[in-house]
């Protein structure tokens, strides 16, 4: 019987199963960071348990680290403590840590792929909901809570009820200026923030095939914003080419053997999904979020919606509360929304292609005098590569701050935050109330849209600008 990518990976990882209860799944790769792990290690100590597979467990510091030039002293005592605890836990349990002085340090979902730790067919978990990012490689990757972090540390396994599968198919060809970020925002806008709850999503169709690996990561990253357990894209030659030569993948003949296996994971022709939805690429315009969840999006040439247009009373009130928090009036053209801040970074959009795309927009231009803009590369590797290409100079000359790697203003656990009332165009993944700082107002956009907004001081349609546009691997 034909099988989906998900079914193939699931079957390979079942350690134990019996009817009427979840299956015990083996976990190939466990990524750990400083914020959601201290209580898990503490519990291991209390119960006298060890980390079962230190060779499958890797840690980084990303969520609360300052993005100032290194080395620095962390002024926030609680952040400093959490970082010290992570170091101590890695030392005493024998886990490799990509510390702040490591050339491999960075956001957990940026470094996994760039080090080749992330591979097709693997089961990957991390105490972070954006673990769905790694699904771009055809891995089954999902976020877990701290109790499950402890469980995986102790047993290298997890109890999982088998989710249903949802195919999200995007047909056609993206129009110039429309990016992977716009695709996923558009989809979430259509299906809603709970639209994929209970499902593992597989993104299919020609648009996905034409995306680069980094663009696929942007799509899979935001699967959780539609409620999905995981999001994945079948491995193909683009996946294989990205991984070849990376540090943790097999080398030489072993790599070719692994690659053949990876390619065999793609969903078989005729495989059945529990549900399928189809979207047309030509319908997708650059997206801007207007509200306080990632499903509240509108086309760049659209207007802030009128809550009265929602027939469902719960949705209507939700829209009213969102507009009040965002300080927006119904009917306002999106392009008239003025900005105070611009943030280019996060596990969604802080990779080298994102920075290249944003740099191509700001080259020879300058950030509007009313805007403070920053670029936070996703990892030390991304930062080094960008500097080799001179992107740091382009950003700096245009008036952007060029900072060190970390999660930064995506969630504002470090000093990079919005002040109350500040309005930000952000390439991150969540526009929840207070996400980037108490009272801060976040609009989610793509890197090129963020860059153009920084220059203009308000949102603009990037399609009206004369910049080189790359939308996919084959273009």
């Amino acid at each position, binding site marked *: 019987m034909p099988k989906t990518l998900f079914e193939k990976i699931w079957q390979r990882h079942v*350690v*134990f199963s019996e009817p*009427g*209860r*979840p299956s*015990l799944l*083996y976990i*190939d790769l466990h990524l750990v960071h400083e*914020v*959601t792990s*201290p*209580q898990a290690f*503490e519990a291991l100590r209390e*119960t006298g348990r060890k980390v079962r597979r230190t060779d499958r467990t890797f840690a980084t510091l990303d*969520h*609360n680290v300052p993005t100032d030039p290194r080395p620095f002293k962390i002024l*926030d005592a*609680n952040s400093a*403590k*959490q970082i010290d*605890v992570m170091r101590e836990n890695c030392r005493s349990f024998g886990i490799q840590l990509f510390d702040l002085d490591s050339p491999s340090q960075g956001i957990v979902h940026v470094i996994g792929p760039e080090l080749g730790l992330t*591979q097709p067919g693997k089961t990957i978990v991390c*105490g*972070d*909901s954006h673990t769905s990012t790694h699904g771009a490689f055809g891995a089954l990757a999902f*976020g*877990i*809570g*701290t*109790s*499950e972090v402890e*469980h995986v540390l*102790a*047993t*290298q*396994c997890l*109890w999982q*009820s088998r989710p249903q599968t949802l195919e999200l198919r995007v047909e056609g060809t993206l129009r110039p200026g429309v990016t992977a970020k716009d695709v996923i925002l558009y989809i979430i806008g259509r299906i809603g*923030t*709970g639209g994929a*709850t209970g499902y593992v999503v597989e993104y299919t169709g020609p648009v996905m095939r034409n995306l680069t690996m980094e663009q696929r990561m942007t799509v899979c990253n935001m699967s*959780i914003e539609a*409620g*999905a*357990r995981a999001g994945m894209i079948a491995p193909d030659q683009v996946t294989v080419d990205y991984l070849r030569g990376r540090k*943790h*993948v097999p080398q030489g003949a072993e790599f070719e053997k*692994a690659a053949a296996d990876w390619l065999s994971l793609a969903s078989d022709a005729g495989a059945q999904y529990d549900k399928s939805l189809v979207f047309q690429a030509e319908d997708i315009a650059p997206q801007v979020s207007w509200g306080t*969840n990632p499903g509240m999006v509108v086309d760049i040439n659209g207007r802030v919606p009128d809550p009265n247009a929602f027939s469902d009373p*719960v949705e209507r009130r*939700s829209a009213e509360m969102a507009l009040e928090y965002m300080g927006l009036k119904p009917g306002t053209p999106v392009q008239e929304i003025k900005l105070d801040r611009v943030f280019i970074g996060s596990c969604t959009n802080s990779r080298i292609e994102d920075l290249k795309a944003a740099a191509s927009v700001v080259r020879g231009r300058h950030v509007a005098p009313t805007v403070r803009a920053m670029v936070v590369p996703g990892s030390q590797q991304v930062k080094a590569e960008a500097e080799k290409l001179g992107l740091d100079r382009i950003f700096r000359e245009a008036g952007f701050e060029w900072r060190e790697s970390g999660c930064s203003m995506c*969630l*504002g*656990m470090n000093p990079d935050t919005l002040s109350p009332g500040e309005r930000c165009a952000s390439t991150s993944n*969540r526009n*929840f*109330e*207070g996400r980037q700082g*108490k*009272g801060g107002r976040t609009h989610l956009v793509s890197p090129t849209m963020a860059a153009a907004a920084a220059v203009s001081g308000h949102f603009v349609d990037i399609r009206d600008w004369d910049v080189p546009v790359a939308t996919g691997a084959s273009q």
Partner: protein
Amino acid sequence: MKPFVQHRGLVAPLDRPNVDTDQIIPKQFLKAILRSGLGKGLFFDWRFLASGASNPDFALNQPRYQGASILLARDNFGCGSSREHAPWALKDYGFQVIIAPSFADIFYNNCFKNGMLPLVLPADQVEELFQLVQAKPGTQLTVDLPSQTVRDDAGKSWSFEVDSFRKKCLLEGLDDIALTLRHEAEIEQYEKAHASVA
């Protein structure tokens, strides 16, 4: 873990959909290295005004809902981040049960790991409960896990579904890891068979 069998308590309503974990427990409280004491940060930005004073408009601050242990919520409760600090904060504040038409996946799972019951009822029944709670101050509900029912004091009851394995774990207060380690032989066998996988 303490078993969960039956719970009776005061109900507090939180009448908005898509309550995300950033609202349940804002980022500044994630720097904790312990599970305990997070109740003070629960719904922090909604509970407290900029001055630090209690926000009188927020439901949980109203005198009639003091001491509530059952939270009545709307669709997609607990969406967003995987932070287990969200159920930790709810539990530390005093909530044992959360009733909603739907929950986000990771949050739902995290509740069970902490001996709490996220209870799904159809949207129209949740709406009925909202009206009941708002109309009758002091409304208490009894949640009975073995029979999978919610009852009010007038004798009306609503039944709910829960996965049988999760139910068993809650009823017996099972430690997941101890349960898994009973399968040590299977885990070892799996590891031997897949030793070549990098």
